[in-house]
């Protein structure tokens, strides 16, 4: 009850204040540049998250609001306390309130009339930005390192094709000339030059040439076999198609959403966690409802975007596991990311650039050991390591993971 009484008192004093204020100021929308720029600053700071001038967002587009609303005075009252205007039974206020799913605008009680009028001035003077002359699509990025790998491959392939064509054309010219010269009477020396003993067939049958070809083919084959044998049981580059085409490039790359926002287990436990769909729904209740991929989330969790309600019919999303460390080795994410302070990208590669995630690292024992030999122990601000750091001072060099038992068999195999 105490809250209610206090709130009531606040409410009435506020109402009184608003009434006294609103009647004591002029209610013309200013047109001077100073007011407009002040209004722009206020608009960007406070209104922009829900309103745009020229398009509907959470709230209506504000363009023309000065003509649409019942009066300027009404707008002033509304901005300061929308709840009160709605409660007063005002027809227009209730119409908007119902039109926007009964979501109420935040009250900006601290605003003076001048401030609100300057925002209106900005809205009135607002001109939509000219669509800037967009740089031609597909143009290489500025700077020296602009040519992408794809372009380079195309250029090289084109050059090879041109070279092969030139060899063919030259061969044709040579044979044509030879035929032409043989029709004439030639002395012996000239005939020897024209009908050289080194023909294409004599070269291909020479033992040197055969050896060269066999050697090249055999060494390429040998390398492929060795590579193949070494990659048995190693799943590097495994990039399976997932049930929902989630793009890390968009979410982690462009939107800069932190890996740990979704993979919540990474600081706390062995597994980094595949995020549960409720994390998707933090945004996707609003964004891209119509996308077929998002519809898959909705059907998995039983969400009806039209009524924004849950049906209760649930069905797990069967993501395909990419990183499979063998059962014989133990790995803990928290130990490496939380205590060791290792970046996700160190092992998982540039996931923020991957449209489809692939296994970036080898995940072989040699790969683990290599890192344990090279990496310094992250002992800053961690009292656990105080004694070890003290003891290690005697020896030269920094304290590596191998110095604190990072190469012991039983650290990972037990």
């Amino acid at each position, binding site marked *: 009850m105490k809250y209610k009484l206090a709130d009531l008192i606040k409410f009435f004093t506020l109402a009184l204040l608003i009434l006294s204020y609103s009647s004591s100021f002029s209610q013309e929308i200013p047109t001077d540049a100073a007011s407009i720029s002040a209004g722009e600053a206020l608009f960007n700071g406070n209104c922009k998250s829900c309103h745009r001038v020229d398009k509907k967002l*959470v709230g209506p587009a504000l363009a023309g609001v000065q003509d649409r609303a019942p009066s300027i005075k009404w707008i002033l009252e509304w901005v300061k306390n929308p709840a009160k205007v709605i409660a007063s039974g005002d027809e227009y206020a209730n119409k908007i309130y119902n039109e926007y799913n009964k979501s109420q605008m935040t009250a900006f009680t601290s605003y003076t009339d001048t401030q609100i009028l300057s925002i209106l001035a900005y809205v009135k003077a607002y001109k939509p930005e000219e669509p800037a002359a967009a740089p031609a699509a597909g143009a290489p990025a500025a700077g020296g390192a602009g040519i992408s790998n794809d372009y380079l491959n195309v250029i090289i392939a084109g050059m090879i094709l041109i070279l092969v064509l030139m060899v063919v054309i030259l061969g044709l010219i040579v044979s044509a000339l030879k035929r032409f010269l043989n029709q004439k009477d030639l002395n012996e020396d000239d005939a020897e030059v024209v009908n050289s003993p080194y023909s294409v067939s004599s070269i291909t049958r020479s033992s040197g040439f055969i050896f060269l070809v066999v050697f090249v083919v055999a060494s390429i084959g040998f390398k492929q076999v060795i590579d*193949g044998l070494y990659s048995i049981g190693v799943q590097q580059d495994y990039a*399976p198609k997932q049930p929902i085409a989630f793009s890390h490039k968009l979410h982690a790359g462009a*939107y800069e959403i932190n890996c*740990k926002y979704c993979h919540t287990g990474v600081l706390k436990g062995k597994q980094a966690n595949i995020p549960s769909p409720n994390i998707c729904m933090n*945004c996707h209740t609003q964004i891209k409802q119509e996308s077929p991929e998002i519809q898959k989330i909705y059907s998995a969790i039983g969400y009806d975007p039209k009524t924004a309600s849950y049906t209760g019919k649930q069905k797990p999303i069967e993501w395909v596991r990419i990183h499979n460390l063998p059962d014989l080795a133990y790995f803990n994410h928290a130990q490496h990311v939380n205590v060791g302070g290792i970046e996700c990208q160190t092992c998982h590669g540039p996931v923020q650039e991957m449209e489809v995630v692939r296994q970036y690292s080898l995940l072989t024992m040699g790969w683990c050991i290599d890192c344990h030999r090279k990496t310094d122990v992250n002992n800053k601000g961690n009292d656990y390591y105080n004694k070890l750091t003290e003891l290690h001072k005697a020896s030269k060099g920094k304290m590596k993971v191998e110095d604190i038992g990072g190469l012991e068999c039983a650290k990972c195999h037990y």
Partner: protein
Amino acid sequence: MRGLSLILCAAVVIILASCKASGDYPGLEYAPNMYHSVAYEPLSQITDLDHGTFTNALDNGRGEFYNTNQYNPYKMNLRTPPAHVVRRNAHGWLPYRGTNDTTGLRMANKLVSPFKNDSTPAILAQGKAAYEMYCQHCHGAKAGGDGKVAQGVKIDGVEHGVYPGVANLKGDAYKNITEGHIFHVITYGKGLMGAHGSQVSEEDRWKIARYVKSLQKN
């Protein structure tokens, strides 16, 4: 004869070279029964009863790699905790019991942070780390409501959506919110903001609240 041996050689090369993983193919496994956990692992599940019978069959007649908990719904190895389970954290705190409604929010306004007046750099640094993890992509590095998600992005000339209604925490409407209010809103969400209680621990929520208040002062 010579041609046959050549073809055989080529076949061996091709077969061995194709052990490598790529795309949907996970590559050849040499000793699969050492790779797949027989015990239940939370994020792995092999539902095929016969999977791995070529190496060995278990006593129950199932394949070697069958490691699926048939008693759980959808045969998942991971389950949601039973209802009414209460988890305490390292400080022994019980879960937040404020309700997800206007009364709850009004009560939360008066809540006092368990960190009391401790605004040491350590708490603020932890709050900053948590803020960067959970808040920054929408609310922006300086809490100006200008994170990438709120601004929208463009990839290869294609515009991607803007999340509407991201609060500018430095705006006048939010200047006077209390730490308890921030804590409550992170837990349950408000307006268009989703509930983040499942992701952000209670401790982190209070630290974020403290950090946001410090951002608002600058």
